[in-house]
């Protein structure tokens, strides 16, 4: 009995039982559906074993959308709980679990895969490559991320969710104050996903440095590729730090070491320091590719080349360096002394300068542009003022003396949502609408798209502006309720209404996908937006090999030059193309990783040992395997190309 007790949820509630039922039913429905329509073979051949960067990208997208709803439900529940004073919808423990899982799911399992989707789908096309440098490693990265995310999500119904905040500060996250397995899930699930992310970083740096089309020098790379390159460099430097941190957290929780404990020399602030050495760069891993997308969208729809290309690149490099030098601004009030605070205050504010440079470059691109108001452009236009506001409150928070007022209040919550939603989420939605036709061969409905953008923005303003006010008034973050007398009621009610409007906005996105799948025209060209970069020069849908002939690049807007100056992009004759074979190893190995993670969470050491062996056997098999890929013959290429041109 004792054994099974560990798998039970420590604080069961109606919501948890309902989700258990929902998860169970969904799994049954999926299995039944696949069997009924005889799609198992298709699923295995075309998706689970694929090494095609475009399909891997689409799987990242699906996961990200799924997680957006998981994190969104958490958000709505929190806002509902806080909507009125002394509410009893959720108890304190449940609230702790929800703000924790909301934070982790949104940052690591929603925003990260969304960024990965763009990198996977767009970067090889944008640099005129046929694939990434290591296609199988890429598949493994995705599956590790996916298994990490799934492992994290089952914490809700098996054994209990983490409850110490997404920052998981010790000693709160230690076994003394957090007895359930929740924080084991945190350590292990993020570890598994993080390994995948690190491998993506290595893969894409190599891809971008080595596989660009002839003629594309570094300073002729499109801006999104630049942003992806820099983000991946940050990944390679930041994620190993996280891996070590999580390993030490695991050791503390499960093997009785004393890294972050309160006795025998342990130091809880060490966790906070190392966490933010990773955590602050992490937010730039998210925002830089978002900036890259805005650059593409804005220059496309201003019908003008990006103003200040070199300063755009330079500012990103500076941001990436500074991002590693500011981490201590997360604990100005935790006793590190005025001198340290001043240093970190200054480095933090310094980031505003290169960011400001970028804002001005976008504005100057718009000036004299012939602006076309499409949905992606609308998101970008809403981004500029909203994000700037978030930037200003960020500088306010960076003033260490003043931070004693804001620290751990709703003001902070308002600030970071104010940068992350218009900054990252809007970029993702802009990019989603922008790249949808390239992925699926039809547009998303523009009218619904614009409605969504406006609804989200109105909802966003209503949801987060009141938090600045109640935060300055002293409403602390991570508090599950407040008294009537505190007077925070009105602001929180407005916030709830805003959050509900945002929820409608997100549902509209799904509706738009459904609607457009059914009713939008399939008759679109390869380049429906009249865009400027290489990804629009190949067919829609993109053939497996991306480009039948590698493009000849002359500038950072290769396609635009081809269109306006009559430059011929694709010269020469077809030659056979080398492509990698599909492989089941990444998927199988990640499944083993999932079991490994699950066993580790519950300290089931025998399965841990067995699965560890399994993982190494997979690696050994891969090492001995001889697979030189295959060739697509000239005849096949000719056929594919005529078909695509005819359609």
């Amino acid at each position: 009995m004792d054994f099974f007790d560990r798998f039970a949820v420590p604080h069961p509630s109606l919501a948890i039982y309902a989700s258990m039922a929902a998860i169970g039913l969904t799994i049954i429905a999926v299995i039944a559906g696949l069997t009924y329509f005889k799609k198992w073979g298709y699923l295995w051949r075309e998706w689970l074993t694929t090494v095609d960067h475009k399909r891997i990208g689409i799987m990242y997208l699906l996961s990200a959308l799924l997680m957006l709803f998981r994190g969104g439900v958490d958000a709505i529940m929190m806002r509902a709980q806080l909507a009125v004073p002394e509410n009893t919808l959720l108890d304190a423990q449940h609230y702790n679990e929800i703000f924790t899982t909301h934070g982790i799911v949104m940052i690591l399992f929603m925003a990260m895969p969304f960024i990965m989707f763009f990198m996977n789908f767009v970067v090889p096309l944008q640099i005129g490559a046929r694939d990434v440098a290591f296609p199988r490693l890429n598949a493994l990265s995705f599956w590790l991320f996916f298994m990490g995310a799934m492992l994290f999500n089952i914490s809700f119904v098996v054994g209990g969710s983490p409850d110490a905040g997404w920052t998981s500060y010790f000693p709160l996250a230690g076994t003394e104050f957090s007895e359930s397995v929740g924080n084991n899930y945190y350590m292990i699930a993020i570890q598994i996903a993080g390994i995948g992310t690190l491998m993506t970083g290595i893969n894409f740096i190599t891809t971008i440095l080595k596989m660009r089309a002839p003629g594309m020098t570094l300073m002729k790379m499109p801006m999104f590729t630049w942003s992806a390159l820099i983000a991946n460099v940050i990944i390679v430097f930041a994620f190993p730090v996280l891996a070590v941190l999580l390993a030490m957290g695991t050791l503390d929780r499960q093997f009785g070491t004393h890294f972050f404990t309160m006795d025998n020399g342990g130091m809880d602030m060490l966790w906070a320091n190392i966490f933010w050495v990773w955590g602050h760069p992490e937010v730039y891993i998210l925002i830089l590719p978002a900036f890259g997308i805005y650059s593409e969208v804005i220059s496309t729809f201003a019908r003008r080349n990006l103003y200040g290309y070199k300063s755009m690149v330079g500012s990103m490099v500076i941001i990436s360096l500074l991002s590693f030098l500011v981490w201590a601004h997360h604990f100005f009030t935790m006793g590190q002394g005025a001198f340290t605070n001043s240093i970190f205050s200054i480095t933090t504010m310094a980031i505003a300068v290169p960011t400001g440079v970028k804002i001005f470059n976008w504005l100057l691109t718009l000036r004299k542009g012939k602006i076309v108001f499409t949905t992606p452009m609308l998101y970008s236009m809403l981004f500029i003022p909203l994000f700037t506001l978030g930037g200003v409150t960020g500088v306010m928070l960076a003033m260490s003396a003043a931070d004693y007022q804001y620290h751990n209040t709703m003001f902070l919550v308002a600030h970071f949502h104010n940068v992350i939603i218009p900054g990252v989420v809007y970029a993702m939605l802009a990019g989603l609408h922008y790249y949808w036709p390239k992925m699926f061969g039809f547009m998303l409905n523009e009218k619904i798209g614009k409605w969504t953008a406006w609804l989200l923005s109105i909802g966003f303003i209503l949801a987060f502006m009141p938090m600045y006010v109640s935060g300055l008034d002293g409403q602390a973050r991570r508090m599950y309720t407040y008294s009537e007398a505190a007077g925070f009621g009105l602001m929180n009610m407005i916030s709830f209404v805003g959050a509900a409007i945002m929820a409608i906005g997100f549902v509209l996105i799904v509706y738009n996908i459904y609607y457009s799948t059914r009713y939008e025209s399939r008759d679109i060209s390869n380049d429906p937006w009249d865009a400027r970069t290489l990804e629009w020069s190949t067919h829609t849908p993109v053939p497996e090999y991306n480009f039948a002939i590698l493009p000849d690049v002359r500038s950072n807007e290769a396609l635009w030059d081809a269109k306006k100056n009559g430059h011929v992009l694709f010269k020469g004759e077809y030659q056979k193309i080398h492509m990698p074979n599909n492989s089941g190893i990444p998927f199988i190995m990640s499944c083993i990783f999932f079991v490994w993670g699950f066993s580790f969470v519950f300290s089931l050491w025998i399965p841990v040992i067995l699965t560890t062996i399994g993982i190494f056997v997979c690696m050994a098999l891969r090492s001995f395997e001889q697979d030189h890929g295959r060739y697509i013959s000239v005849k096949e290429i000719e056929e594919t190309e005529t078909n695509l041109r005819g359609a």
Partner: protein
Amino acid sequence: MKIDNSLPLEYSTEENSLKILGFWIFLGAEIMLFATLFATYFTLENRTGSGPTGAEIFQITPVLFETIILLTSSFTVGLGIHAMRIGKQKAMITFFSITLLLGLAFLGVEIFEFVTYVHEGAGIQTSAFTSALLTTLGTHGAHVTLGFFWGLFIILQIKKRGLTPQTTNKAFIFSLYWHFLDVVWIFIFSFIYLKGMM
């Protein structure tokens, strides 16, 4: 597969040079990994709680052995790569085998050392200092263990398939890894052991 004969075999195909670059980037990540462990170690170095200090448990003899063994193995793996470049498969396999045996010897001494620590009351749970120490050493040791199996598989493949662009590429990357472990050890030797004994 296009083979460029003006380059050493391990670089001769495009795939090979991609792999070597990718591995260098991976080593960059490994540097961050060990840097984090070192930073932790230096932070917790003097936080020994009720347990022993470094000066009380470190012994020069086993550590000197470990250092000499590992440095020698780095040298022999270099000889192995040299033999590979001039096409001497047998010599290469011999040098690689010596390298791996030295790796095993290193692990043997390290295990002996760990057992001694535990006997002296310096287990991983004793204090923040011992946690950081044993985790850092253990991570390096785990890397050597992994390297042992990796090297073994490469020897088997070379025996079976000879010196091809694929196998030489793997061997070369393995040698980079092995040298890297040696460099990390130099840091461990100087900044953990020597500093701790002073």
